[in-house]
């Protein structure tokens, strides 16, 4: 989180110095938390889909082997 905030500050320093109130910077942690939630949920869901896909593929393979064995 600190690394991300440092990158954000360094990239956006000029803008903060010109058009934003310094008081608003304290909300940066909230902003990062919000964005982290979005990414975690989407990536987590994709990860769960990939795990379920692998499990189904294994089960399918096992059933095919069973059918061959009969």
């Amino acid at each position: 989180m600190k690394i991300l905030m440092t990158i954000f500050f360094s990239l956006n320093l000029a803008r903060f110095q010109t058009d934003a109130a310094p008081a608003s910077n304290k909300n940066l942690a909230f902003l990062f938390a919000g964005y982290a939630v979005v990414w975690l949920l989407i990536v987590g869901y994709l990860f769960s889909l990939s795990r379920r896909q692998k499990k189904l593929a294994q089960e399918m393979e096992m059933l095919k082997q069973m059918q061959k064995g009969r």
Partner: protein
Amino acid sequence: MPTDHSLTRWTNIFVYTTSIMMLVNLYNIFIAVPTESSMGIIQRIFYFHLPSAFLAFLAFGVTFVYSIRYLIKRDMWLDRVAFCSAEIGIIFTTIVLVTGPIWARPVWGVWWTWDARLTSTLVLWFIYVGYMMLRAYTGEEQRGARFAAVFAIVGFVDVPIVYLANRLWRTLHPQPVIFGSPDSGMSPPIRNVFLFSLVTFLGIYLVLMFYRLRLERVQMELNELKRETAYS
């Protein structure tokens, strides 16, 4: 049920395009867009809070339409599309319900308040979690699909309630900035970044739908194989 693999190339192109759009969206939200003057940088949550809400509505809309189609045609694939879209809708509603309080805390001074918009959104989330649970606990496949379709159609009534909540009742939630009163609206840079974010989230929805439906197709093939194995 769609047939086969000729879509893969186009799907890959679409997935890569969406990934690039997600990065551009990140740049837009954190770097390019000017900071809103009254709320400061926390207002940037708007660019993924509102598109998530729209996509949740879209996802539940797809569930609604496909549930009706399922009841008419009794094709299991239509039921599966409705189910997958509801699952993704829950993800987007969860994003709305988590990012909302994170935005509210510094602006309103509270994480949560039981006003009409927030409460109806929470109810929406519970309705579709209930829909998923109904699927899980109804044993027989056809009967479960039928019950769930009716539940999804009735549950969709909450979507317009959520949408209209801050128009119909006095709420702490901000008044609508899109299709709102004549003095509402967004400045051009904010509007452009918002629209780009909305298109990006639409891309994310379509990608998630593609992967979820592919999984569902494998599941249906597996069930068929299980039936064949049991009868042989």
